[in-house]
């Protein structure tokens, strides 16, 4: 059990800046995120896209913004728990017991939900029959590529993941690549390589096709693909891989007893606390009259939520407002003179 002042759910820009504010006022926190990297939507959806509305930063990319936020909280040495998801919150006296999917447990008086639109999960095939094989022979990520050796593999998708794996697996497996249109969004060099491999009959390329059905008695035997004219083809395969990017799902958050308004959590605008004492929500996931889904609003919300956390983390102390320019205590915390 890890004891801390605050658990932050979500390592996007809002969660990161909230961590900064907690560090400034002398609180400890632990940050949990479902992705394998820090940065949330900024790093997953638009690492290269320029952002123009961060105050005093005329232009920066999602990746630059993330890197700067990480740099800004370095002095506090907070722990990140990546590739992990908060599953369960239970109340115990004045604390929350936070359990994650990997089995980690935290004891904390405060939980700050900075979860964006939820956690990122792979987008799956629309076909119902694919569910039966999910995790065994219908896969959305590759952990151990050796399982495909000398097997027949159908790969669906047109992005870099699909193309890179098609190229890689074609060395040891019989690969079919299926994509819904002629153009690919993967890098031009990968597209070039795929076309070469297709010409040499090393990869079977089916464009303008999508999945129709998967079949098999016990284990997967074949996948049926269709085009828009209704023509279909049957491919004998051992594995079906889908690379359609990630979607955001609210996930376990809906089970924590919080008031919800569609996919958002109503909060008060004094400290961004939800209907549960000690649970705060900030950033895209929170809602209140006038809410703007801007990163700058998330920063503001995080700063106020941090002060809200102080009350429960240090019930016997009075919070004193200080400026970073003038406070020696804050400078000590930041490790500057």
């Amino acid at each position, binding site marked *: 059990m890890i004891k801390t002042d605050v658990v932050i759910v979500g390592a996007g820009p809002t969660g990161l800046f909230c961590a900064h504010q907690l560090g400034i006022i002398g609180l400890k926190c632990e940050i949990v995120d479902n992705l394998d990297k820090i940065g949330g939507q900024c790093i997953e959806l638009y690492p290269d896209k320029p952002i123009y509305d961060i105050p005093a930063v005329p232009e920066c990319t999602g990746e630059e913004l993330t890197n700067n936020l990480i740099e800004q909280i370095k002095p506090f040495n907070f722990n990140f728990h990546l590739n992990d998801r908060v599953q369960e919150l239970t109340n115990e006296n004045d604390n929350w017991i936070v359990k994650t999917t990997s089995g980690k447990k935290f004891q904390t008086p405060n939980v700050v939900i900075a979860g964006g639109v939820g956690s990122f999960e792979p987008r799956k095939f629309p076909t119902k029959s694919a569910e039966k094989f999910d995790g065994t022979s219908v896969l959305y990520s590759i952990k151990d590529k050796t399982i495909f050796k000398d097997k027949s593999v159908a790969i669906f998708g*047109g992005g870099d993941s699909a193309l890179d794996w098609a190229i890689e697996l074609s060395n040891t497996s019989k690969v079919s690549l299926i994509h819904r249109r002629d153009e690919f969004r993967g890098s031009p060099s990968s597209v070039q390589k795929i076309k070469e491999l297709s010409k040499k009959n090393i990869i079977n390329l089916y464009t303008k096709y999508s999945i129709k059905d998967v079949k098999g008695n016990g284990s997967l035997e074949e996948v049926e693909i269709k085009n*828009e004219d209704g023509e279909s083809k049957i491919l004998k395969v051992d594995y079906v891989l889908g690379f359609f990017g990630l979607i*955001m799902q609210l996930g376990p958050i809906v089970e924590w007893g919080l008031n919800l308004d569609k996919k958002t959590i109503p909060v008060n605008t004094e400290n961004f606390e939800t209907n549960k004492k000690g649970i705060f929500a900030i950033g895209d996931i929170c809602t209140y009259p006038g809410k703007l889904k801007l990163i700058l609003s998330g920063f503001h919300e995080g700063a106020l939520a941090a002060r809200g956390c102080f009350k429960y983390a240090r019930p016997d102390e009075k919070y004193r407002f200080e400026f970073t320019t003038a406070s020696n205590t804050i400078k000590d915390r930041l490790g500057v003179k």
Partner: protein
Amino acid sequence: MAKIKYVEHNGKEHIVEVQNGLTVMEGAVQNDIPGIDADCGGGMSCATCHVYVKEDWYDKLPKKEMGEDDMLDQAYEPNSKSRLSCQIMVSDDLEGLTVHMPEKQV
């Protein structure tokens, strides 16, 4: 201003007036029309405002810009008449536009 018809996958129709300058996605969200999630809020980065536009209207709409098809690759059951409704800007010319929603967005 244009009257836009949103047809849910189950056939239920919603006709609303949408102001010029808003997107077809915003027209749905602001009028609480179910079937368009728009998780990313119009940033062309999530493919959860996916709609189908029938032939007659599809060709009349301003063409897709770079990136829309890439995002549509990740939508639920896209076809050659798929659009992201956050990328369709409403103007008087769109009077009578009908969009059909997919079975689901994710």
